């Protein structure tokens, strides 16, 4: 897959896009948030240094989900009243994108789902049940969260969002679902919890003493 | 683990029982002797039984 190369409009550094469908990326050198237009890159904002966090995953970590390999290309850091978590943006080897979340070393992989008739945020309450893909999901937690930072390549523009609501849905198996209300249109992600070992992660961050 | 041991043990018990039946084992105690001379047929009194002199009184209740 060809890797388009461009230059950062702010500082001139080389920008490499690992994923062809990236809409937004962050310049590693000057921390400018850059958006891809048809012609070139446009700076739309600046991201502060990411807060220190404990995720062992980093950009360019590689892994496997099922029989597909993936590489980590970006992330969004979220915070909520009891802490925070990471949503790592991964690119699968068939070009599609998925999200690998890391919440206190609990890992889950989810994919965007094209479901219709998703409920509005105000209509959702804990215990409510939905059926997608012949699976029954129960609302377990509704979390008001805020974004704390972004890094790398993302499939959408994400620089001016502050508060978002997430609805977690669980099942009796490893499957779970998330309703994402960061956009006016609700978005549905279906995924499953995975064990660290199942992902065969390589090129992880190293921790002192480990 | 116990089950495997038991299966082995049971097989041993059953084969012992079968073997015993085949070889004619019995539960009674009997003394074996060798070299009883042929002359005993003519003179049965010359044979000394291990049990000779047994006098058993089983008085009733």
């Amino acid at each position: 897959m060809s890797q388009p190369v461009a230059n950062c409009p702010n500082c001139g550094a080389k920008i490499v896009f690992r994923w062809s469908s990236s809409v937004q990326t962050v310049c590693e050198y000057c921390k400018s948030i850059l958006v891809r237009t048809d012609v070139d890159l446009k700076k739309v904002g600046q991201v502060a240094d990411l807060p220190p966090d404990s995720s062992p995953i980093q950009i360019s970590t590689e892994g496997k989900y099922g029989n597909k390999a993936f590489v980590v290309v970006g992330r969004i850091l979220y915070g909520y009243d009891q802490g925070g978590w990471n949503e790592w943006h991964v690119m699968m080897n068939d070009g599609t994108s998925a999200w690998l979340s890391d919440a206190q070393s609990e890992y889950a992989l989810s994919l965007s789902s094209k479901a219709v008739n998703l409920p509005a945020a105000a209509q959702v309450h804990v215990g409510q049940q939905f059926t997608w893909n012949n699976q029954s999901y129960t609302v377990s937690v509704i979390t008001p969260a805020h974004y704390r930072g972004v890094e790398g390549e993302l499939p959408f523009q994400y620089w001016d969002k502050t508060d978002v609501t997430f609805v977690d849905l669980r099942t009796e198996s490893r499957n779970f679902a998330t309703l994402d209300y960061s956009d006016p249109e609700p978005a549905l992600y279906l995924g499953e919890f995975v064990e660290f070992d199942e992902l065969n992660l390589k090129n992880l961050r190293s921790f002192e003493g480990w | 683990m116990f089950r495997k041991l038991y299966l082995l043990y049971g097989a041993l018990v059953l084969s012992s029982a079968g073997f015993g039946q085949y070889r004619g084992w019995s539960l009674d105690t009997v003394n074996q002797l060798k070299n009883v001379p042929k002359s005993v047929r003519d003179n049965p009194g010359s044979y000394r039984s291990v049990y000779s002199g047994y006098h058993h009184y089983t008085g009733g209740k």
Partner: protein
Amino acid sequence: MSAGTPPLSGPPKPQARALNCPKCGAAITLHSFGQAVTVVCASCHSILDAKDPNLAILQRFEAATRDVKPLIPLGTRGKLRGTDYELIGFQRRSTQVDGITYYWHEYVLFNPYKGIRYLSEYNGHWNDISICKTLPIADGGGANYLGETYKHFQSADADTDFVLGEFPWQVRVGEKAAVTDYVHPPRVLSGEKLDKEVTWSIGEYMYGREIWESFKLPGDPPAPIGVYENQPSPVTLNVTGMWVAFAAFAVFLLVLMAVFDMRAKKEPVLQETYQYNRAESKAETSFVTDVFELTGHTSTVEVKTFAPVSNHWIYLNYALINQDSGQAWDFGREVSYYSGYDSDGSWTEGKQHDSVVIPSVPPGHYYLRIEPEADPSLPNIPYTVEVIHDVPVFGIYGIAFLALLVPVVIISFRAYTFERSRWSESDHPPMELSSSSGDDE
């Protein structure tokens, strides 16, 4: 695959953070790379906010007793399920049942890649615990988790008495949680309710020696007392299988009996009636029978004696002698029979007949040498001697049956007492068998 230019100023490489307690100044190190929510100062027992760079004080507690020492020192690393974990936190919890306080300990383990696990210890019984990712379905009597059914064992309130180290949640001394345990040995499913939120965890029983090996601890682990709720039973799992095996063996035994019964010739080779005369007893009473032939293979020989004694006895010294080889089997048999009448009614003792089976007699020509004796008060009596060749010996099957039955009964009994011991500690103790009142925890 080229990774592009490495970031110039990404987040710093995570390291353990060294800080000072805001209350007493003692040194505090955070080992969990930002995953701890609270951390305890071991010197002044202040619970601090681990996410706050200034370590705001959340609670101070007085240790009611002297410092409780964790069995595994904080900072020790051990291997569980193939992964190294570092011990970062410890707490002692208690519950009250019937006025008695029971204590147990919980340990927080950390690995930067795998996250947090827990260990619990009570009376020498250990459990390897992790938080459930999928939700169990529970109703009062039982619960279902990942396809397994768990039985309700106990519901109790757990108090946090003492804390040390780092915790991934807001721990406070004195906080009370409602804990419900469901068991499916060797696993235990535990639901902990604190402020309306239920957290489910799944634990697997571990033996003290496994923990000691994992963490390379000196000395010996504390000896386990009693049977723990999810302690695996070495025997229970085998019981059904053994009874099935026993049934199969019993059937096989019956088949064996039938086969050998059909095979046995049960051939009568001698049947004679002789007369015993006291008058002749001064002289030599021994005599020999006619010669008879035992054909076929080595097998049993049954000698039956019958005499119509009544309140007398006769005794026959028998010898079965092989005419050609000189081999002999020597045995004595008594026939006695008594009867009478007393205050309890009529009674009898003994029998008028006797049977003995001689083992492993090779084929050949044989005769019996017989030397009769009798009760001095008996003047004369006829007696019949029967010799039957190749009879089955049913006593052997009886012994085999018992030999097969005994181990199964022993195992069943041990499994039964083990399970009784287990459930005697629960909310559903087994009924007392004896009349003495038992304690139910």
